[in-house]
């Protein structure tokens, strides 16, 4: 990480802390915002958050690794999360999965080399009546068909 990037991160974290308050209960809101803005919560970010909240960095690491939407590893700009739970599974989620892998040229759990897309599975998105469903960042897409998925990916590319 460049020094200028580090400074920008520190500034961002300090600002979030002054918005949410420097309390332990602000940890998850801060982490959610950092994740959304940078696509991951880097080791440096974890240390800085620990410093401003005055808690041990291990506490921050423990929380980051507990929640599936927080990542200590850098992910792509667009994180695609396909639901693999039962109702989507029965609605041919596996054909959607194949289209995603083919269109992006990566497997589930991987990130494209241009850092644009990450592909992951997730559990029930609460869209079972419109299955199969997926998220791209916070945006939800339902009633997916192979054709529609390819269209959606093209728009994001």
């Amino acid at each position, binding site marked *: 990480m460049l020094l200028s990037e580090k400074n920008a991160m520190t500034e961002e974290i300090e600002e979030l802390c002054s918005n949410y308050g420097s309390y*332990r209960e602000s940890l*998850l809101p801060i982490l959610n915002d950092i994740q959304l803005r940078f696509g991951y919560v880097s080791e440096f970010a974890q240390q800085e958050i620990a410093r401003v909240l005055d808690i041990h960095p291990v506490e921050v690491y423990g929380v980051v690794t507990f*929640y599936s939407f927080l990542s200590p590893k850098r992910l792509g700009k667009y994180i695609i999360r396909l639901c693999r739970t*039962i109702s989507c599974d029965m609605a041919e989620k596996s054909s959607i999965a194949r289209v995603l892998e083919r269109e992006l040229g990566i497997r589930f759990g991987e990130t494209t080399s241009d850092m644009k897309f990450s592909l992951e599975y997730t559990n029930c*998105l*609460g869209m*079972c009546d419109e299955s199969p469903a997926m998220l791209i960042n*916070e945006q939800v897409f339902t009633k997916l068909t192979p054709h529609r998925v390819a269209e959606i990916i093209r728009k994001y590319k």
Partner: protein
Amino acid sequence: MPIINNKELFPTDYNDRILIEALKKTPQDIIYEIRESGLKGRGGAGFPTGTKWNLASAAVAEKKFVVCNADEGEPGTFKDRVLLTDYLPMVIDGITLGGRAIGAQKGYIYLRGEYRYMLGRLENYIAQMISENRLGNNILGTGFDFTIEIRLGAGAYICGEESALIESMEGHRGEARNRPPFPVNRGYFCYPTIVNNVETFASVAVIISKGADWFKSFGTSKSPGKKLLSVSGDCRKPGVYEVPFGINVKELLKLVDARKTKAVQIGGASGYCLPRSQFDRTISFEDASTGGSVIIFNQTRDMLSVLKNFQEFFVEESCGQCTPCRVGNKKLLDGVEKIEQGECSISYIRELMDLGRSMQMASKCGLGQSAPNSFISIVTHFENEIFSSR
């Protein structure tokens, strides 16, 4: 899509003027009305809401909190999404009435990370409520101060469990606490806290406006009122249905136009699987109890792969804190894979059923206690199918 049928309990033309009338009532009157209605929690466990609120109201503390559980992670459940989308005024009024009833000044909505796309709309609505003085200080001149803040989850099913939810709100890993003490005595930062489901709060708003007797005119004596069901899987009309408690599975299948049904999963992955022979069972707390999830399987479905899907869910979502759940779920999944490969003896299956029963007794929280339900019910009812093809 809003609720598909009926809409008696959750009318699309909800009259939001009831709030001012309701806030003129004393906290005791509100609690009395809710107790009279016999409302039980809609999140799955079915604890009587009036009793919970009474306990929190009786607790002596300098602060109290109301938490609306919008974590909705149970596979096959999506009725809270519909309530938050199309019936938000009822949910917010219900939370406010909860605050009034127990003497809290602050409410939270714990919204699952998957529903982040709703966040902007929810925040705008709350801001509008504040500008109309329907939230904030001295609400509508009644002398009652109450605000609501939204807390976003980050993708963890266990955070729907009320004590794990509170841990998460406090900025920790979502690991369930030992209970007792219950949140009504020691909840958010050890202050008395009521945690209720989205649908429970929406139901409160209706009960206060239409009265306990009206509410009790629906349903059964042990399960008064109506319930939202989230129906998905093999049917022509999936969606959210408003049904009176006591409706049986057969009637429900007709309502949603399901054909050639082989089995119905009631209560999501942590619920039970009912075979055809049990389709006269009723949806109610005393019989087939559900937080709202109904998943339908037709004759083409392989019940072992259904079970595998559920079991993978639990292995993934266990918080890992206690052994029966962390290791037990893994063992059950291994067993399912063994069956799949035709390598599992009937006697080993019996051992796994025993393991499941131990998990029900020895796990620390509801996740591990209910995780084996699917395994036990599917293996019991579909043993022939599962083994004959392998």
